[in-house]
């Protein structure tokens, strides 16, 4: 069932727009405004790094890229643990934190990239700014689903396990170690894998970002591929792609699969599973004498020491009932300060927006519309081929097991890494960039759909298939009464992720510097990039904000409803 779990995102509880959402959006606007104010001091030109196309430079670039991902992931985990804990255990915090997270996860992250890069480069040395910006960007792509997963597992821990840890007087550390972390482990792990898969997309985008006179590229696999495509160096493109695939496969085989096999023990089910995840590397480690010795003579005593120290240091307190019954004045003051700051920021941001002339607003509107068309087009094309292919694969278990690794590896190559290659191929065609943009969106979206449809098709119960056969339904009738309804929840789940990815892609796809030329097409992504290049900051604010609001609104009004419909009407359970 690896297919079904891999790309399933948890949708938070259904709720319409609230004033909280509005507040969060205002907060986002103020943050953007603050970033843009900072960006005014950004240097006019930024010298990029020189990228060597020599194959022996590749290991170094691979290490750089992985290090950025790892740093962002560590940051995400830290954020997840703290934020999830606060939201799960403090009702007051929960009321603020969950709506915030809910909006943040539907914001198209790449739209922040220009503002983050510019503002960072205004206050930090150039290469540090770009490095940090890439890490922040990847962090924002990785953190939200992890946090949701952690929050959800914390709030769904069975009552009696909580009571057992209370009567046996576990302190907070022991509770975290024996109850909370193990309970959330599997969900955190699957979401970590998703986060890494998504993170590559943004890493590649950040590594190749260049705008006007400012070259924000970072030495890494993404930049290598882009430089190779720029110079039309086919062998280098192949080397780069090979290295990228190798890194992703190695991480999968040496990190994620072993972790999955190990984490199987954390299942809550009280029966043995039929086919638990396996990993050759995990088996190897388990049989290794060295690992065994390390575990026995180093790891376990160390863990024992840490436990003992923490248990002494933080004993269980029996008087927690008395905790703050008074009004938390400090909290009110803080909330007021934040409120005032927001109000002032919103006021200033509003002024900046007023500077945008009407004609530019029309451009923005047009841009959003065109990008929306492009996103929809990509989605329709993706659906058109993934539904029949997915059903064919999913309904055939043998084909499915054979194709699974192939599809997974292909899908794991981040679309942004391939983008320069598409450009190289299409730049000569009429409407080349337009085609490449749709293609990039397609590459970023179709896999989510395909995976989900395969999962959905393989979950159709055999007896229902027999029934449709016995009833001698025609092919169309069979699709209408069984296959499409059964697939509906899976298609929606896939499409939500897919459309989010497509909006993100528009930022890198609609405006590119390629082979010394600037190519652009109409769209909101292109507008954001142009505003960045020309230093038109009011336009940058207006365009970024418009895009964010559009995507959030579409999410709420369209996808959420469809998701709810799918969950209530078409779930096969």
């Amino acid at each position: 069932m690896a297919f079904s779990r891999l790309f399933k995102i948890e949708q938070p509880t259904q709720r319409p727009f609230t004033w909280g959402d509005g507040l969060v959006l205002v907060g986002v606007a103020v943050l953007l405004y603050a970033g843009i104010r900072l960006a005014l001091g950004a240097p006019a030109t930024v010298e990029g790094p020189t990228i060597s196309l020599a194959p022996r430079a590749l290991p170094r670039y691979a290490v750089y890229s992985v290090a950025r991902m790892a740093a962002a992931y560590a940051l995400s985990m830290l954020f997840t643990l703290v934020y999830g804990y606060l939201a799960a255990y403090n009702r007051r915090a929960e009321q603020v934190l969950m709506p915030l997270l809910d909006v943040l996860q539907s914001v198209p992250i790449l739209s922040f990239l220009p503002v983050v890069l510019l503002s960072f480069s205004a206050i930090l040395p150039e290469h540090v700014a770009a490095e940090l910006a890439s890490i922040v960007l990847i962090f924002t792509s990785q953190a939200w689903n992890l946090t949701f997963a952690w929050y959800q597992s914390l709030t769904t821990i069975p009552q009696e396990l909580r009571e057992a840890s209370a009567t046996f007087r576990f302190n907070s550390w022991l509770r975290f170690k024996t109850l909370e972390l193990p309970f959330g482990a599997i969900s955190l792990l699957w979401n970590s894998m998703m986060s890494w898969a998504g993170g590559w997309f943004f890493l590649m985008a950040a590594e190749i970002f260049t705008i006007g006179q400012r070259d924000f590229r970072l030495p890494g696999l993404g930049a290598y591929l882009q430089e190779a495509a720029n110079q039309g160096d086919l062998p280098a493109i192949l080397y780069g792609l090979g290295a990228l695939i190798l890194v992703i496969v190695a991480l999968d085989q040496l990190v994620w699969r072993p972790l999955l096999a190990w984490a199987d023990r954390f299942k809550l089910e009280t029966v043995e599973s039929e086919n638990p995840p396996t990993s050759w590397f995990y088996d190897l480690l388990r049989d290794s004498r060295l690992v065994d010795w390390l575990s026995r003579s180093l790891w376990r005593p160390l863990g024992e020491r840490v436990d003992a120290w923490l248990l002494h240091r933080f004993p269980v307190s029996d008087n927690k009932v008395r905790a703050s019954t008074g009004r938390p004045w400090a909290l009110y003051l803080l909330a007021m300060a934040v409120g005032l700051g927001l109000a002032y920021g919103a006021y200033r941001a509003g002024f900046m927006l007023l500077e945008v002339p009407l004609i530019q607003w029309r451009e923005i509107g047009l841009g959003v519309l065109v990008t929306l068309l492009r996103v929809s087009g990509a989605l329709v094309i993706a659906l058109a081929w993934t539904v029949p292919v997915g059903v064919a694969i999913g309904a055939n278990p043998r084909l499915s097991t054979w194709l699974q690794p192939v599809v997974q590896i292909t899908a794991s190559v981040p679309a942004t890494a391939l983008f320069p290659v598409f450009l190289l191929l299409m730049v000569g065609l009429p409407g080349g960039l337009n085609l490449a943009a749709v293609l990039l969106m397609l590459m970023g979206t179709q896999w989510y759909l395909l995976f989900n449809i395969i999962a959905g098709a393989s979950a159709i119960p055999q007896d229902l298939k027999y029934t449709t056969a016995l009833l001698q339904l025609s092919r169309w009738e069979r699709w209408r009464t069984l296959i499409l309804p059964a697939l509906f929840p899976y298609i929606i789940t896939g499409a939500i992720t897919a459309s989010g990815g497509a909006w993100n892609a528009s930022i890198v796809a609609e405006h590119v510097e390629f082979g010394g030329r600037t190519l652009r097409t109409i769209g909101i992504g292109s507008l954001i990039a142009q505003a960045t290049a020309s230093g038109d900051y009011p336009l940058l604010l207006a365009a970024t904000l418009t895009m964010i609001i559009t995507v959030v609104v579409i999410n709420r009004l369209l996808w959420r409803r469809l998701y709810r419909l799918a969950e209530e009407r078409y779930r096969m359970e």
Partner: protein
Amino acid sequence: MPTNGYLLELQHINQVYRSGERKFIAVQDVSLTLSEGEFVCLLGPSGCGKSTLLRIITGLQQPSEGRVLYRGAPLQGVNPHATIVFQTFALFPWLTVLDNVEVALKARNVPPKLRTARALDLLDRVGLDGFEMAYPRELSGGMRQKVGFARAMAVEPELLCLDEPFSALDVLSAEALRGELLELWTSGNIPTRAILMVTHNIEEAVFMADRIVLMEKEPGRVVTEVQVELPHPRQRKSPAFLETVDQVYAALAGQTQPEHVELGVAPGETGRIRFLPNITINDLAGLLEHLAEVPDHRHDIYRLAEELRADSDHLLRLTEAAELLGFATIGQGDIALTPLGETFAEASILARKEIFATRIRRVPVFRWLTAMLRSAEGQQLKKDVIQTALELEFPPEEAGQQLEIAINWGRYAELLAYDDADEVLFLEPTGAASRSQVGQP
């Protein structure tokens, strides 16, 4: 020690839940004592607040009102001298059997070597030698509960609390485990000073306890106590044992009251609303048919439990339903069919539906429900709407359950119809509702 001689004392415990504006009483004015050397059972139907009481006693939950004294001192936070054995075992599935026991010792800062030795000793004593390295999912229910017992014993509690520890087990392992627990307890080999067990199984309580505290629901309260002065091991077939069982059934089944008292009032009126017992009509019919076959149509309720192989909790719900609908009367632990009950037992399927319909139309909750539907547009209402209205009277979960039961009964009687897809409840236009005028007694 400022002790009054009791190990544990509850003084006027009240537990109140708030749901919106409404307050619901889960536990009403419970006072209780427990002395060293006692094995006490809290016995009552589900929903009587006995598990809540257990959580209050162990300090997992704070009572809304009242005091919990442990050895004469007010309890602060979780009681360090008490542990719980849980109905669902509450083992950590990712820890081995040994680790599950050890972790309880670790929390009390017992050093590793001593910890392992003690855990192994305990597992040996409950008969789990050889299973130390197994994971809970590899064990049967009975063995899992043994781990639960070993873990609880490991911390050497003075007060051992058992929350329906045998009700998730199959009959045979439950019986074996009961015997083993009693053996440990009566031999005095464990440092436990007192045991408090929550159960809804009457025979189990009589089999194990020195004293049984009987509780009733709506609201949860203590009705009476029964002293069991039989020597261990107790013989389930002995007349003295059966007499005690009969006595407990009599106390819990109560006495049939005049009809207006039995039926209570409708939602919105002042007075006591009668909860609908959670039963299926098939089971009720089974009970009535069985009663129709015994001489005089009168029987000891405890014997019914044996003959129908029913759980005492389930059986008491059935007798309550029979009483509520006027099919039977109850007094002193006996149940007797009324003429109407006899008619029902002998009637055809359709006639049964009609009798049932006339009877439930007298139940105030149904009167209220049909009146509400009749005045609604199209004689139908969303389930949510009714649920919200019921939540003014019942706690949310109970309201949901009451509605489910009402829908079930109403469907059987052909008074109500329910569309699950749209979650709409409506009056059945034809059928028993209109025909039933004839059947009025």
